[in-house]
C-alpha cells in the first residue's frame, strides 16, 4: 500500500514525533528551539518530523517517545469502545504513522494495538458506508482517520453510483453533433 508516490504516505511522514537524542549533535540547533548555541545536546528532547525520526533511530542517534495517541490512556479508551474514539483530531494518519513507528520503537504491542483498532472500527465503517445518505456528510466521518475515510468513501461512492444509476431516467446520451441544427446553406 505504501509506495514512493503515495501522497498519503508522504503526508503521514510529516507528522511530528518526539525523540530523545542519544548523542550530541553539532550544527542542527534549528531542530531544538530551546538550544542556545547551534547544537543539540545529548539527552535533549526534540520534536522532529517522522521521516527524520526514522533515520535518526536507525542510526542509533536518538530513541523515540511514542506520541500521545498511542498512550495507555488512548488504548484503554479504544478497548472500551473502538467505534467512538475520535482518531481524526488526534492524528489523521493514525495507521500510517503507527505502521512506521513499529520498526523503530521498543513497544512490541503497538502493531497488535493497530490491528485491534482497525478490527474494532471496521464493522462500524462497513455498516455506515453502505447505508449513508447520499448528500449529507455523515457524522461518523468526523472521527475517522484518513485511512478509514478512504475505506468509507469507497463503500459510499459505489453505493451512491448504483443508486443514481437505478433512478436515472434517460441513459442514452445524445452526441453533441446530433443536436446541432444544420445550417441552411452549406458552403
Amino acid at each position, binding site marked *: 500500500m505504501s509506495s514512493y508516490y503515495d501522497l498519503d504516505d508522504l503526508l503521514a511522514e510529516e507528522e511530528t514525533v518526539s525523540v530523545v537524542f542519544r548523542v550530541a549533535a553539532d550544527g542542527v540547533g534549528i531542530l531544538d528551539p530551546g538550544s542556545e548555541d547551534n547544537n543539540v545536546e545529548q539527552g535533549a528532547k526534540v520534536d522532529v518530523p517522522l521521516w527524520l525520526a526514522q533515520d535518526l533511530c536507525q542510526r542509533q542517534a536518538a530513541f523515540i517517545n511514542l506520541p500521545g495517541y498511542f498512550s495507555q490512556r488512548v488504548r484503554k479508551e479504544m478497548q472500551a469502545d473502538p467505534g467512538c474514539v475520535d482518531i481524526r483530531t488526534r492524528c489523521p494518519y493514525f495507521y500510517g504513522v503507527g*505502521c512506521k513507528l513499529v*520498526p523503530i520503537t521498543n513497544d512490541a504491542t503497538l*502493531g497488535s494495538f493497530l490491528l485491534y483498532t482497525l478490527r474494532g472500527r471496521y*464493522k462500524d465503517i*462497513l455498516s455506515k458506508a453502505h447505508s449513508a445518505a447520499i448528500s449529507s456528510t455523515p457524522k461518523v466521518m468526523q472521527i475517522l482517520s484518513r485511512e478509514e475515510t478512504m475505506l468509507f468513501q469507497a463503500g459510499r461512492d*459505489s453505493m451512491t453510483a448504483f443508486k443514481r*444509476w437505478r433512478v436515472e431516467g434517460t441513459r442514452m446520451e445524445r452526441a453533441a453533433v446530433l443536436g446541432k441544427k444544420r445550417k441552411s446553406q452549406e458552403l
Partner: protein
Amino acid sequence: MAGQSNLQLSVFSAAEVEFLAEDEQIDIVPNVRMDTLHMICGDYGPFRPQIPVKVPLWLAIALKKRSKCRIQPPDWMTVEKLTQVLEDEREAPREFQPLPFHYVEISRLLFDHAREDISDPYLVRSLLEDIRDVRFHKVESGLENLSAKTHAVKLKNLAAMEVNIVRPFIVRALQCFYKHDSEELVKQSASEVESQAVSSDRVPRRTLRPR
C-alpha cells in the same frame, strides 16, 4: 478487464455493467418479416411474425424501440419464480439463490423499454427490489466477518451489479487488514514494514458463504 470510467481504481461504473449485460440472449416475438441480420457477434434471425427468436438484449431493445417486436420476459422474471426466490433467500441466511448473473441490469432494461410486455410489472418490480435488498444485507453481514486472516472472499451466485457495488470497499478493507496483520507489524521483527511478503495463494481461503 477494467472499466473505462475510472482508470485508477479499475472498477466498472453501473452503466458499464449494464452495457455488458446487453449481450445476454433474450426471446423476442417479431411482428415484421425481416431477413437474417449478419452481425460481427453472430447471425440473428430470420424474423417471421409471431415466431419467437433469440437475440441479444441490445438488439431486442433496438427492435422494441421501433415497435417491431414484443420482448418475452425471461422465465425467472415471473411473480411465482421471484416469490419463490425471495422466500428461499430469506430462509437461507448464508447462501445466495441462483439468479442470472446480470439480473439487476436485465430487469432494469426491461422495465425501462418493455414495461408493457411484463405481466404484473409493479409486483415484479417490488419483488426484485426486495430480493436485492435481502441479498445485499447478506453481503454486508458476511463482510462483518472479514478479518485479518481473510485472504479471499467466496461469494457464490452473487450477481454482477452486487459484486460491483462492494468491490471497492472489499478491496480496500482486505488491503488494510493485510497490511496490519503482516508479520512485521504484529510480531515485531526487525525488518522494514514496507517489505511485505507477497500474498501467497496457498493459504487456506476463508469461505464467506459456505454452501
